[in-house]
Each structure stands twice: as structure tokens, then as C-alpha cells.
């Protein structure tokens, strides 16, 4: 619940962010010659269908993972969102630890 609330926020915002990141990956890959025109057209179609039906952050991560396994040019997008998830999880853990410490300190006093 904590992660969903922290990271999910608004599904449409998440979708927009995903589109932006995937777009950047695709453009860079095309310009560097790491992706063909056919691949970009095929993946564009797939991305639209899947991101449009997105319902959660976890689902996005799973989709990006399978996409990057098939098309490594999108790995950066997966890594970026995964890092965000890790950062938020770490932040939540830190907050929980700090709360416990406060509690212990209060008990001691």
C-alpha cells in the first residue's frame, strides 16, 4: 500500500512518464543504429497497447522487464523505474527505522 501510494499516485501520470522514457530510448537507439525501423514500428504498437491498459506500477515493471528482455534498447527504461521503486522502498524502510528509533528513545526516557 505504501509503495502503491508513493509511486502510483496517478495512473495517467505513470503512463505519461513511461511513454516519455520509452520514447527517449527508442529515439536514441534509432539514431545510433541499434534498432531498425521495423523494430521501432513493431514495438511502438506493442507499447501503445500495453501502456494504455496499465493498472499498477508493478505491472509496468513487469512489462518493461519483458520488453527489455526482447529488445535490450529499452533496458534503460526498466532500470530507471526499478531504481525509483528501490529508492522509494529504501525511503520507506528508513522512515520505519527512524520511527522505531524514536519509539525506543521515548521508551528509554
Amino acid at each position, binding site marked *: 500500500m505504501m509503495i502503491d501510494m508513493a509511486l502510483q499516485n496517478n495512473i495517467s501520470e505513470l503512463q505519461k512518464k513511461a*511513454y516519455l522514457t520509452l520514447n527517449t530510448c527508442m529515439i536514441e537507439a*534509432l539514431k545510433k543504429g541499434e534498432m531498425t*525501423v521495423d523494430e521501432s514500428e513493431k514495438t*511502438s504498437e506493442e507499447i501503445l497497447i500495453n501502456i494504455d491498459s496499465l493498472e499498477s506500477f508493478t*505491472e509496468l515493471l513487469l512489462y518493461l522487464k519483458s520488453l527489455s528482455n526482447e529488445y535490450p534498447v529499452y533496458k534503460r527504461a526498466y532500470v530507471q523505474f526499478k531504481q525509483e521503486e528501490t529508492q522509494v522502498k529504501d525511503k520507506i524502510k528508513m522512515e520505519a527505522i527512524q520511527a522505531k528509533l524514536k519509539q525506543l528513545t521515548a521508551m528509554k526516557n
Partner: protein
Amino acid sequence: MPAPAEMVPRPRAPVAPLPIEASLRDRRSSAEQGARRLESPFAPSDMKKEQFEAAQKKGADAEAYAKTHENPRDTIKEQRGLTGRLSETELKHLGRVDSSLAGEVLQFDTYSSVMEESAKTGKTPEQICEDHKPPINGKQFETVRNEVLGRMVNMQYLQEAIPGFDKKDGPQRLIAVDAYAASHPGVRKLYVESMRDIARRAVAMPEDPTEAAKAGAKGKKDALDTDRGIVIDRIKARLGSKADTLSSDQIEQMFKGGLSVDEVEMNMVDDVLRANKINPVEYHARQEAQAARERMDVLRREFEGTHQNDKSKFYLKAYLKGHSPDPRVDEYRKLEGRTAEISKMEQIITPKQDQTIREIEESVYGKINYAKGGARVGGMRSDLEAIHDNLKQVRITEQAGKAPLTVDGEKTSADRTLLQEQLRDEMVGALETSIQDAFYEDYDRLDKMNTRKAEADALDAAEKGDVRRHDAILAIEKNQAHHGVETDPITGKKIVHCPDIGADVKRITEDTDNGVRRLELRSLTEGEHPVVALYETDERGVVKLGVDGKPIPKYFVDEKGLPYKDGVSITKVPATWESVRLEQLSLEDRTLLNEIHASQGESVAQKVMSDYFFGLRPPVRNVELHGTKKDLKLTDGQQADIAKYLGKGGIKEAYKDSRDYNTFKKILHERGINPNKGGPGWLLMLFLFLGGGVVRKKDET
């Protein structure tokens, strides 16, 4: 005392710093290194320069587009691209296989390309036809549309695959076929790819030796005809105004009947004389008379020469009388007689006609060159000889085109026939195969998406520490597939369990929400390690077996289906997933079931329906049916009930892009009903089952 040598640290040579590449080298094993490194799809050895440049250009265009469009979704949408049309060369090779089928291919290519572009760009088909190069006329497009859809409406596969097809009327069937298949971009892509493949292989198809011989002969004949035409024009130019009324055909006709060049020459003169109103008989009479007189002069001189020995004066009459046995005398008398006969005719020729005759003779025979002893130079003899030879070549060429095949020719013909038949069969079946594959891909994509959603829900549950819920979601995903459409993990084949699907659909029809709950309970109670146990389990949660080797039931029902009570119930029957009463289950189990139904219930119902529609479609490649389609039969009442139940929740976003929904919207639009006003979900489902007949026009209600 100094330390032993071995204890004194030896001075070390300064260590050279690692080269940068070495320091960056990943020395882990390949398994630890993770995903493969990025490699360019353009291998240096077969560097496809054009593709590389095309990719770079597309990247630059996409970047420019992104800068002018705030919503990144629009950029992704723009990058989808369109399936390119078949080229002239590809169509030509398809025509070599079968010209009539190639025509149908062109029609489908034209129609589906316009519809694809319309769907992806938002332009109307009319606008796209106008912008097309060359522009496509509105009427032509309508004709193409009607012919394409008219053919597809008769495809048995589509008649069986489109839900409620038999209940739709004519125009609705066309719309359905259009939405489901003709305008499906996946169908277009697969179809064009298969046609390209057939065209590529048709290049290797040898030319029909008979046709090749005929074509070769025709080519040669055309060339000969052209050459002959040039010579005839030259002849007419030489004859000038005197042969204005003489046509090229007439000149050609002179050579018919195998006449020699000399005969043609004479005929040419006669025809030109006639064209100038000079009687050829009179002309030939004069020629004959002139020739006769010349000969008579020659003979007279010979007679004089003979008489020279005699010293008396030469008298022709006396000579002729005295030398009658001499054959020359006989000849002279005959010529004299002939000349007397025809001299009247030569008097008819006027001086003007005589001038014309001279000009004609010069054109045909050439001018008299007195410097060369009166020989004629120029003339059209060489041209007439050229035409004569040309017509001979034409006859030889025509014969060569009809000659029977040689042994090699027959082999080539057989090879060609074999390959042509194979390719023709593929062309005939290509559209249906493409439709099947596109439907299969659609289902597969939806299935993978739903699996991922379930996996995500499960992971979220695990993240929150709710392991049981995590296991429950995965169990539903896995076990429901065992009763619906499951994918063989090794072969990728789809296995359709028709009897189970039919039973599940009927259960939902009869019990609606409770029916879905029962299906969820079934999934959760199945297996050796069930999430909800209806049988006794050990400490690991694995179902225990009794002394009889059967599972030990935890719950019992009586003859009325109520929970068994000692002293009240008569019979004690072990409860199954179908019969167990929910109040018999523990609070923990009931809570789990409620949570699962709240989060997964809609997905379970939609999975059952997706599997149902997939099962309704005729078997395709890579699909195995267990049971038959009869197991999926529903009555009209059952169909209406399930439509009502499923539609109440509205349409999920992803489903709005489905073929069914878009077909439905088009038919509603045709009937003047706005699909966005109230209850599209319910009506959609009803339409799918009962066809467009349930939807009346506004003025019909």
C-alpha cells in the same frame, strides 16, 4: 643483528597503472554479467546502408515530432508506421502465378492500406484516396471495397469466427467482416508479408516455354513488321503523288501468293498505272511493241549481214521469202504480225500519259544512266527484295512459335507447372491464414497482458506481506487456464477445454456473481497444495491421504445440499467446490475469497468469455480442441443473461480497442444510435451473442 634475508621486504618495481580498457573489463562469468550487451542489428559484414540511414532518419524525425507534441503518447503513436504497399514488380510476379488472383491481391492491398492509414492517422478514407498518388477515385474505391468485402463475407472461416454472424443482416455482415478482418492492421501486415514471400519465390518460376516461344516469336514479328513498314514508307515516298491512293496494305498484298520480286515489280507498275488512270494493257502493249521493233531491227541487221556476201541490193521482203527455213525469218514474221496487232493500242497513250509512264518507270526501275550504257540506276528493286525477305522471315518466325516443345522445354514446363500450382494454392489460402494468425496473436497478446496483471497483483500482495493472497491470485491464474484455454509451455500450443468452458459460461449465466465465486473457489481448492483446503492437509499444507488412499474431506453436506448436521441430516456427502456452503468455511478462508472476488472477479469473468470466443472460432494452426463446439452452445436466454451480467461493469479500457467493440460501434452508428450514451457494455455483449438484430434503428422503436 640484521634480519634474515627472507624477512626483509624486497623492494618492488613500481606497478604500471592498468590501461583504461583493462580496468573496465567485466571479468565476471557470462551468467553473472546479466543481459547481453547491445549490438547493432546491422552486422558490419552485410552492412545494409539504406536501412541504417533509414533508422537514423526515423530517429531524427521522431525527435523533431516529440519536440512539437507535448504528449509523448502521440510520438509513440506516430512511430507505428504503416505496412507498405506491394510494388509493381511484386504484383507482376504474382500475376505470373495467377493473374486473376493477383487482381484480388491488389484490391485487398488497396483497400486495407487506405483503412489502415485512416485508423492510424485519423484521416477519412476519402482524404487518403485524394492524397494517394495517383489519386483513387471515390467510385473506384467503393467498387474495390464492395468486391473485397463481398468476397470475404463468403469465407466460411469468417462466418464461423465472427460471433452472431448468422443473426446479422447483409450490411451488418459487411461491417463485421470489415471491422474484424479487412481493416485489421495485423491481418494486412501478415497478408502483405506472405504475398511478398510468394512473389519472391515466383521469380524462380521458369517462363512457360510455349508462351516464351510465342512471346519471342511475337517480339521478332513485331520488329519485322516495323522494319517492313519503314521500307514500305520509303517505296511510297519514292512513288510520290502518283501513288497517293496506294495503301501500305495494298503494297503488302502484292507479295501474297509467293510471287517473285520480278512479278511484284510488274504488279507495282500496273497498280500505279491504274492509280494514274492508265490502262496497264495499253502500256504493256507499247512495251511489247517497242521490244518487238528493237528485235526486228536486230534481226534485219543480221539478215543484211548475211546478204553482204551477195553483191545484189538487199530487199527485206525478198530475203524473207528466199530464207524461209531460217528460224530467224520465222521469228521476224511473227514479230511483224504481233506489232501490227498491238500498234493500235499504243496510239491511245497520250503524250501526257507517256510522261507519267516514264516517271513511274523511273521510280520503279530507276533512271537510265546513259554514261553506263543505258543501264538503270536507283529504283526500288532493293526495297522490294527487302520486303520479300522480311515476309519470308515473318513466316519462319510464326512457324517457330508453333513448334512442339523439345525435351528440355517439356521439363521446364513441368517444373513451372509444379511451382505455379504450389504458389497458387498459397495465394488462395493466404488471406484466411493471415486472419487466423492475426486472431491468434490478438488472443495471445490479451492473454499475456492478463497474466502479467495477475502477476503484478500477486507481487503487490506479497510486498504487503500477504503471502496467502499472493498464492491465491497465482492459483486462480494458473488453474482457471486448466479449465479454459491454456498454453503448452513447451510447444506454445493453445489447448482449448471446450466442455469446461461451456460449463463455466453456463454457471455464470445461472448464478452470476455467485457463479464467478464458485469458479474462484474451484481454482483455490485445486491441487496438492491448495490455498483453500476442502480436505485435510498436513503441516506443510499438502493434502493428506487416508488409509483408502483418498483425500480426507473436511466439510460435508447433506441430501438437501445444506451443511451436514448430526441427528438432523440423513446422508453425509463430502463437500466439493461445487457443493460446499461458504458459511462452512473458516473466517480466514471467507475473507480471502471476498478479497479475491473483489480484485479478481471481473478478470475471471472476462477470461472465461475471452476463452469462450476463442473456442467458438474454428480450429487454427497450433490450437488443440478438447471436446467440440457443441459444448459451447448457449440458448438465446442464456446469452442474454450473460450479456447483461458482463456488461454491467462497463468496458475496460483495453477492450475498447477490440474488434468486437469497434464492430458494434459501427453498426450502432449505422443505425443512428450514439454508443456513448448509456449501457454500451450490456448492449455490446448482447450484440456479440445475438447479432445486430437486437439493435433497432431509432425510427423503428
